[in-house]
């Protein structure tokens, strides 16, 4: 830096005064927080998702149990008539 270069007058920065925060800032922050959490965790969405998952899970269990029962009945019937329980022609 040469001697001819003008030094910046940084003393002006020390004259900046502190001011009060805006009066309704907290209200606006609380509104933003409410909107954020309402979008993410809407009770309706959570309830709907929960019910759907339970229904799907229950349906799957019912189908599996019914399939197993039907399979057992067919096997028993085929065996009692000395037949194969599946459709294969050759063993």
């Amino acid at each position, binding site marked *: *830096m040469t001697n*001819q*270069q*003008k*030094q*910046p*007058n*940084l003393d*002006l*920065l*020390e*004259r*900046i*005064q*502190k*001011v*009060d*925060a*805006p009066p309704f*800032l*907290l209200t*606006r*922050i609380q509104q*933003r*927080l409410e909107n*954020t959490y309402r979008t993410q965790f809407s009770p309706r969405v959570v309830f709907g998702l929960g019910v759907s998952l339970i229904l799907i899970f229950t349906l799957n269990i019912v189908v599996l149990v019914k399939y197993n029962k039907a399979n057992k009945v067919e096997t028993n019937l085929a065996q009692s008539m000395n037949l194969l329980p599946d459709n294969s022609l050759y063993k």
Partner: protein
Amino acid sequence: MTFEEIYHAHKNLVFNLALQYVQNYEDAEEISQDVFVSIHQSIGSFNENSKLSTWIYRITINKSLDFVKAKQRKKRFGFLTSLFYDDSNDVKHDAPHFDHPGVQLEDKEGLANLFKHINQLPDNQKTALILSKIEQKSQAEIAELMNLSPKAVESLVQRAKTNLSKKINDSEGK
């Protein structure tokens, strides 16, 4: 401490620090909202071994710098879109304006000019200068806030002053 208590204890600190980065009331208010929303969402991760005000200071500095960068990107994008859209009187992006409520009328012109150059400094130099000259923090305090050594802070402030001199003299054609 509840969130409301934290807010009331630190609202002026946050707002004034944000003001030093953007120099206008509306932008500083927006940054302050971002800061307190962030505090609310991450208060659980706050390490109670460190000072709350230090943590809040750091969040404010980061949010202020992010805001400034986002505004600069919007400005650059606004220039590009103006090449492709019909020429109209619509304002495509906000022009920067100096509306610092903490500045006296007699200092407004000088500070507006000074901040024009401060805003061109690299982020770390700008932060060191703001914390040192406006927030009146000691080197040790700035070092803790910026996670640097006091020597590094001293060097940053010196480089900021040197860069400012160059920019001011270049703009005045000396």
